[in-house]
């Protein structure tokens, strides 16, 4: 498959958050700031990339009937690696994301890409797909986190530009839904879907 098409699909036309609406738990849960969204995006990107790589390598070795448990073990291993490494070397980010890191395992985006793409394509395509989907996910999470941080705490990536507390609703859960709704609408309008 054409690599450029795969990349375009992952980032724009099949954007995992705004078009496929996959993995909404971390999307809504951790995007209280751009930094958190970016960190979660990178963690997911790493897991996606590695699990797509491994799954595409072992796809012929795995019998069909046990493919889902095998994929989950692969994914869970990489998630645990991310979790341990982050706790050891980026404790601040780990504090903010803590609860949501183990949830990458059940992020349907990761299993979805393994099942729908990596297990049916060659390794290079699978890795490209993992990278593109991961970038699309990271961009979406950073955008939503940035929007919520700008409106909710008047700052971006921790740099405050107006004194004060901001519109708290955007830091809280309802703001995640509101922000996601409007960003999705704008995104679809921009890529000409609606």
């Amino acid at each position: 498959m054409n690599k450029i098409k795969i990349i375009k699909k992952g980032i724009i036309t099949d954007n995992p958050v705004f078009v496929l609406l996959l993995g909404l738990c971390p999307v809504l849960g951790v995007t209280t700031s751009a930094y958190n969204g970016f960190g979660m995006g990178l963690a997911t990107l790493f897991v996606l990339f590695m699990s797509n790589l491994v799954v595409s390598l072992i796809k012929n070795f795995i019998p069909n009937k046990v493919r889902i448990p095998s994929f989950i073990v692969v994914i869970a291993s990489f998630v645990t690696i991310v979790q341990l490494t982050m706790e050891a070397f980026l404790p601040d980010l780990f504090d903010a994301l803590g609860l949501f890191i183990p949830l990458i395992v059940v992020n349907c985006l990761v299993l979805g890409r393994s099942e729908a793409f990596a297990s049916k394509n060659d390794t290079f395509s699978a890795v490209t797909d993992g990278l593109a989907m991961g970038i699309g996910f990271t961009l979406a999470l950073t955008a939503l986190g940035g929007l919520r941080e700008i409106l909710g705490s008047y700052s971006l990536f921790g740099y405050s530009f107006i004194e004060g507390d901001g519109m708290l609703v955007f830091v809280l859960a309802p703001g995640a839904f509101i922000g996601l709704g409007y960003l999705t609408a704008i995104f679809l309008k921009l890529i000409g879907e609606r």
Partner: protein
Amino acid sequence: MAKRESTFANMVSTLLIVAGVAAFTLSMVYNVTKGPIERGRYERKQAAISFVVPEFDQLKSKNFLPPEGRDSLEFNLAYKNGELVGIAVQTYTNTGFSGYISAMVGFYPDGTIYDVVHLEHAETPGLGDKIEKDKSDWSDQFKDFDPSEKSLKLKQDQGDVDGITAATITARAYCDAINRAYVTLTENIDESHFKLEE
């Protein structure tokens, strides 16, 4: 390589191998990260303790059960030149707006509070998180607070602590956590600190 058939032997062996490789890899990673993780946790606790008690050169820790509540509190007794200079109590409350809040409360040996710092909480950003030292100076009012003379309750509850605007529940819970540490301390302290240090 053709796809392997879903025979029983194939399935069992595949799962075994996949799980085995995963377990091996994880154990390697765990070994590498174990050190830094524990060091990080230890350093953070150490930083919290040295934040809430005067300078010390030796630390001894001990657990006491509070009169109310099931979990025991960890008392960190700080010594300088063999003399007790402060007690850092790791305390908690479950009455926060989002439940559990833990804090490190430091006392002078006479029961006056030296300083307080939060450890964990999930309070509302912008409101309840004013209990954090770097978000607001609200918790500075506990410095040199003598709970034997003043009451560890909010002013609107006929106590002596200023509340947090729009986060009364959080402020009340924080007072509850500090009070739990204080009550447990007074139960276990006497003139010679014998029971405390023994």
